[in-house]
């Protein structure tokens, strides 16, 4: 009998320019819930991707159930009964639940004994059975694109169970869930463990780890720092080990002092490409000196709302007023000039032009104005000088300074560049969508501090975030969006996390 069901010994994995895993050894017992804690970029996902067969380690060994193995592919991992629910779901949007689950292990039947075809009917039945057995309710014939995030996650879990996984890896599973859905998921994880499965939980959320995990390995910058017994360790200890220094998990904020109304949105509706209304009749006001946060599960229209206010999409109905002026049909540039800064959700697609230099990107919203541009000609010296100024002020790291191609910069520094540019615009209205996604704790702290600073300077801030913790931390006013509608607007003090969670799920009573 083996002592550990999974052992990863001295695992090292290198990518160009970085050592993602540096001589890591972890040992996991059968039937335990083993957490892997670390900041973004600490190496947790890489380590588990190796276990799941998506990468091969440069050095080190893997032992499963007491036997040394080389895991060369996800198929191989599946044969060893290892399954993984990824952070970014790997689902085919226009396929049904069943089609997604059987992809790669399709049951085949033969017409007239010779012509093969995929036995969808039989698979549907099997999926229904499985769904009942584990309490993961899904409709096998529903298409993924018609399902919300928590349902899609159930499909990912069922994928593992269909392949008879015994060792289940969950990569940041609660990132996109409401508090209630998180509860539900953690219960399912505990039940799976009680049914004999071994669970590996990758997370940076200390509360959840405290709730369900038995032991916790802490990674920092590719190295294993320590393995703690979760029952006896405090969240403070875990946080400090994760970051490497003392962390304060709360931001200090002066009490709110609202000024005049800066942004007024009335009866705003937005339709998407398929002419479906994704923002329905939304109205609210934001004052200067106010952080107005919109909470909601991903895909409920918050991004489309932010895009519409910034001018990136057309509105189908309603008005947007900035400092009293109706900007509802202004172009993006007109709105920027009138006073809107926008830090978008997808920083690589919208916020930056990756093939341009850092200087060009920092001047992206100013290049057409004097002194950057004179009589149709760009002044490279002015652009570079401005770039250098921002690099220093905001501590943006890059290999070649202003001439670096932004594509070569790290995600964190790319975000710093975008934030720098938008803050320098000194706009009365600043829109932040998911500003701290994918950043490490230090960078998160910095950006949240900057947002509060701008608010103290009298800016009106619209914050769209999927991290409820972040919203509860820095918001003055909270609005919850569900299915394109704003269900509730209230000062933060009047709402509890549970209430916000309920609104996020559409509970209005």
């Amino acid at each position, binding site marked *: 009998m083996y002592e550990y069901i999974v052992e990863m010994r001295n695992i090292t994995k290198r990518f160009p320019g970085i050592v993602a895993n540096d001589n890591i050894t972890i040992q996991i017992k059968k039937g335990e819930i083993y957490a892997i804690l670390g900041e973004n970029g600490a190496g947790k996902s890489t380590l588990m991707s190796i276990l799941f067969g998506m990468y091969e380690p440069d050095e080190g060994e893997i032992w499963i159930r007491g036997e040394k193995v080389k895991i060369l592919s*996800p198929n191989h991992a599946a044969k060893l009964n290892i399954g*993984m629910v990824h952070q970014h779901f*790997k689902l*085919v949007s226009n396929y049904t639940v069943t089609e997604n689950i059987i992809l*790669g292990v399709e049951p085949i039947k033969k017409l007239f004994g010779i012509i093969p075809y995929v036995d969808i009917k039989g698979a549907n039945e099997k999926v229904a059975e499985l769904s009942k057995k584990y309490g993961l309710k899904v409709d096998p014939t529903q298409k993924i694109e018609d399902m919300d995030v928590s349902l899609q996650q159930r499909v990912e879990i069922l994928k593992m169970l269909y392949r008879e996984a015994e060792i289940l890896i969950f990569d940041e599973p609660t990132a996109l869930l409401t508090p209630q859905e998180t509860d539900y998921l953690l219960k399912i994880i505990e039940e799976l463990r009680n049914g004999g499965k071994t669970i590996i939980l990758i997370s940076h959320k200390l509360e959840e780890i405290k709730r369900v995990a038995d032991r916790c390995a802490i990674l920092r910058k590719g190295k294993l720092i320590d393995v703690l017994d979760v029952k006896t360790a405090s969240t403070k200890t875990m946080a400090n080990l994760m970051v490497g220094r003392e962390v304060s998990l709360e931001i200090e904020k002066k009490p709110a002092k609202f000024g005049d109304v800066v942004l007024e949105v009335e009866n705003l509706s937005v339709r998407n490409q398929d002419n479906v209304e994704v923002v329905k009749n939304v109205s609210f006001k934001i004052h200067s000196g106010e952080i107005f946060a919109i909470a909601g599960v991903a895909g409920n229209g918050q991004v489309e709302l932010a895009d519409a206010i910034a001018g990136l999409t057309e509105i189908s109905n309603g008005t947007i007023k900035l400092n009293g002026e109706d900007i509802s049909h202004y172009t993006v540039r007109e709105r920027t000039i009138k006073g809107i800064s926008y830090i978008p959700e997808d920083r690589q697609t919208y916020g930056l032009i990756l093939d341009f230099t850092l200087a060009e990107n920092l001047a992206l919203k100013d290049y057409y104005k004097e002194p950057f541009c004179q009589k149709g000609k760009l002044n490279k010296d002015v652009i570079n000088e401005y770039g250098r100024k921002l690099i220093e002020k905001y501590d943006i790291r890059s290999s070649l300074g202003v001439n670096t191609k932004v594509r070569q910069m790290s995600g964190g520094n790319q975000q710093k560049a975008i934030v720098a540019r938008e803050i320098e615009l000194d706009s009365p209205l600043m829109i932040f969508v998911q500003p701290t996604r994918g950043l490490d704790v230090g960078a998160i702290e910095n950006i949240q501090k900057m947002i509060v600073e701008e608010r103290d300077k009298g800016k009106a801030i619209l914050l769209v975030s999927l991290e409820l913790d972040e919203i509860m931390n820095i918001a003055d006013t909270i609005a919850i969006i569900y299915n394109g509608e704003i269900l509730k607007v209230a000062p933060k003090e009047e709402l509890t996390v549970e209430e916000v969670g309920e609104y996020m799920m559409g509970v209005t009573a």
Partner: protein
Amino acid sequence: MLDTIIIDGLSFALPLFIMAIGGIYCERSGITNLAIEGLQGFGAFFGALWIVIISSFFNIPINKLFYLALLLSMVGGMLFSIIHALLCIKFKANQVISGVVINILSTALTTFLTTQINSLVFGELSDKFQIGTSVRFSVPLLSEIPVLGAIFKNLYPFEIVIIVIAIIAAYVLNKTRFGLRLRACGDNPHSVDAAGVDVYKVQFKAVLVSGALSGLGGISFAYSISTNFSPAIYMGYGYLAIAALIFGNWNILPTFGACLLFGFARSGGYALAQILKMPSTFSDLIMILPYVVTLLLLIFFSKTNRAPRALGEIYDKGKR
């Protein structure tokens, strides 16, 4: 008159259709395919070349090598499509550029080789391969039906071959395991990879299929439009096939409808010119009908098209 429109329309629509199906296979696996024009040309060249050589060296009348020509054209198209597959999958080139490169290369290569081989092997100064006329037959009984019977009249054998292959292709794409995985690659290759299937292999096979089917379309055009292989094989019909599949939203049945539309527009135009007794210079104007119809179709249908989500994406295993 109506008969001719239907007969000629079908014989134009079907080769177009089989090329479009090839395009659907390729694009639904995630690889943009603008190379159909070059692939059909090279396929036709390959088929024509070998039957001309075999006919001459083994003294077989070239008419009897019809089915061999069809087969070899598919092989030729498949071989040439390996270039597109390598460029797009292994060398991760821009797929639009790769497609255009294939088209230009095909024109250059086939013209060069045709003239070269004609002079070296046959001692002739010609840029054509004469492949002989094809037989045409009518289905008994069915072809007697008024109006619709024309569908079964004066058929080229390749039309039957195309219909059979089209049915098989539709079945494979929609009902088999291979088709399921292929269509998944065009939506989310990461999910296919995580399921343990080799995305590159699937895409490679999809490109090869499109090469084979394009070659079949090419030789069919050679038989029906000109009875020879020459540089005139590059009439832009490969691009019509692309327009058809865009119009058909990357699904086989609606694409068939688009191809029929092209076919009848063309044959209808010719019939119109005859009825109105226009002088021969006007035949040039009639020739533009398929292209104009393409533009019009694209104008009305490009906005609402739903391309495969990951079409044109260069799938990189390393990125997450």
